[in-house]
């Protein structure tokens, strides 16, 4: 009998040295620019840091950040549930896919700002408006990722599973879900950045709280340091959630050889 291959190297995601060089380089370039340009265009790093700390020192600001984070997660959650259901339905029924696919493609062409305008006209409640915008802008990506994963399901594995005569529920649990899970996690990572951009636009024009609303206030008082600090809060939130997703991915996809996992 042939020997077992050597176990795959343990996967450890990390920020590489080059990444730190880029980030520090950007900060240095900004600081140099602040020496030559007016303060309202390029505030110093210290000024930005002061604003950044102030955000976390005030409960109102923390509430604004939490509000935005909640909206992003709720919107993505809604899009995930609806989008995944649509993706699986499209995978199971070719005729349903023929109707749904063009609609999802059409939806992808609609700018986020159009959904902002439409939701303001259609709905009264601020939270529902933002939820609606988030779902409509991120849903197609979930559907397409899940559909692709569903369609790539191994026919061999399906036949093997069917030979044991599973119930419909068991088949979904033991075969369909593990098959589409990598696609779902990828969709979460891709949509997270999109959702962060869209929620700010939505809050900018139609909310009385959140990071988008805080940015609007900074713009009205021409405070670039405040605008950058609020932007950093959003970026850090996105990076933290992305890291959490990567950790989840690392855990649930641990069966894959390290080389096949996301770098």
């Amino acid at each position, binding site marked *: *009998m*042939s020997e*077992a291959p050597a176990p795959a190297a343990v996967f450890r995601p990390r920020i590489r040295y080059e990444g730190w060089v880029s980030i520090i380089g950007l900060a240095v370039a900004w600081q140099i620019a602040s020496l030559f340009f007016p303060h309202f265009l390029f505030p110093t790093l210290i000024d930005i840091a002061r604003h950044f700390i102030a955000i976390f020192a005030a409960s109102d600001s923390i509430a604004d950040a939490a509000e935005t984070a909640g909206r992003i997660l709720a919107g993505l959650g809604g899009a995930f549930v609806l989008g995944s259901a649509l993706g699986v339905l499209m995978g199971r029924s070719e005729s349903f896919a023929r109707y749904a696919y063009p609609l999802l493609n059409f939806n992808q062409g609609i700018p986020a700002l159009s959904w902002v305008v439409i939701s303001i006209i259609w709905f009264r409640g601020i939270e529902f408006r933002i939820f609606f915008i988030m779902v409509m802008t991120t849903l197609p990506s979930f559907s397409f990722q899940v559909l692709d994963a569903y369609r790539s399901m191994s026919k061999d*594995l399906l036949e*093997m599973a069917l030979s044991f*005569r599973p119930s419909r529920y*068991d088949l979904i649990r*033991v*075969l369909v879900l593990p098959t589409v899970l990598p696609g779902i996690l990828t969709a979460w990572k891709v949509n997270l950045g999109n959702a962060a951009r869209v929620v700010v636009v939505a809050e900018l024009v139609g909310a009385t709280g959140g990071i988008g609303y805080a940015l609007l206030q900074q713009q009205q008082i021409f405070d670039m340091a405040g605008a950058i600090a609020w932007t950093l809060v959003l970026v850090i939130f996105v990076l933290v959630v992305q890291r959490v997703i990567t950790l989840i991915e690392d855990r649930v996809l641990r069966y894959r050889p390290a080389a096949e996992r996301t770098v």
Partner: protein
Amino acid sequence: MSGSNSEIIFERVGKSFTRPDGGAFEAVQDLSFTVERGEMVAVLGKTGCGKSTMFNLLAGLIQPSSGQVRVQGHDPYRDFAWFRGKLGIVFQSDRLMPWRSAIDNVAFGLEINKVAPNERRAVAESWLKRMGLSGHAGDYPHALSGGMRQRVSIARAFAVKPDILLADEPFSALDEVTGNALRAEFLELARDTGATGIFITHSIDEALQLGRRILVFRRPARIAYTATIESGLSAAQRAAIRADILRVLAAEPESGAVP
């Protein structure tokens, strides 16, 4: 044609597929045979002769176009759920779920059969031990060699204590040494469990080693030759059967694979 002791009955079974150009392709034609309880039958034929289509009909993965398939008196396609826990199938490739460890792959059928977690773990562990893989229970398939993966898939098939055992060229993708070792283990397991079995192969030696009866297929799948392998057959008698099979196979023209 069926005896009262017949576990598997193929009665004038036909199966046609539609080609992409709209034409029909006949993979199985008027196929009739029975397999008695506890009997291991080897099915032999050239590539593309419809062996795998017959296998899929037997496994209830496809429906016959004509005739009927009966396994323990039931239609494996229509009475889908009735066969839960009754079939053990070893495929040509291991078909292990990559997201399940070796032990969880072995326990798969038991999980479908709603065996309690502790019990199924114990059963799966005992099968892994029997297959010489007790040190690899927690390993994922990508960390196992081809031979080890096929051992896991054999353990998965036997773990459910199947009444009917089906194998579709399970050792053809393995090197000779590994294949020989697994073939001997498979035969021993099949005898121990007393399961009724159909073993598909394109190797005459494998058929002679594993089958109590050998059916040689001709395209589209129908029986061209039958041989009964008695336990006391002399080497000369075996050689004669081998020569007959070779003659039947040689008369069959080459063709493309069955869909």
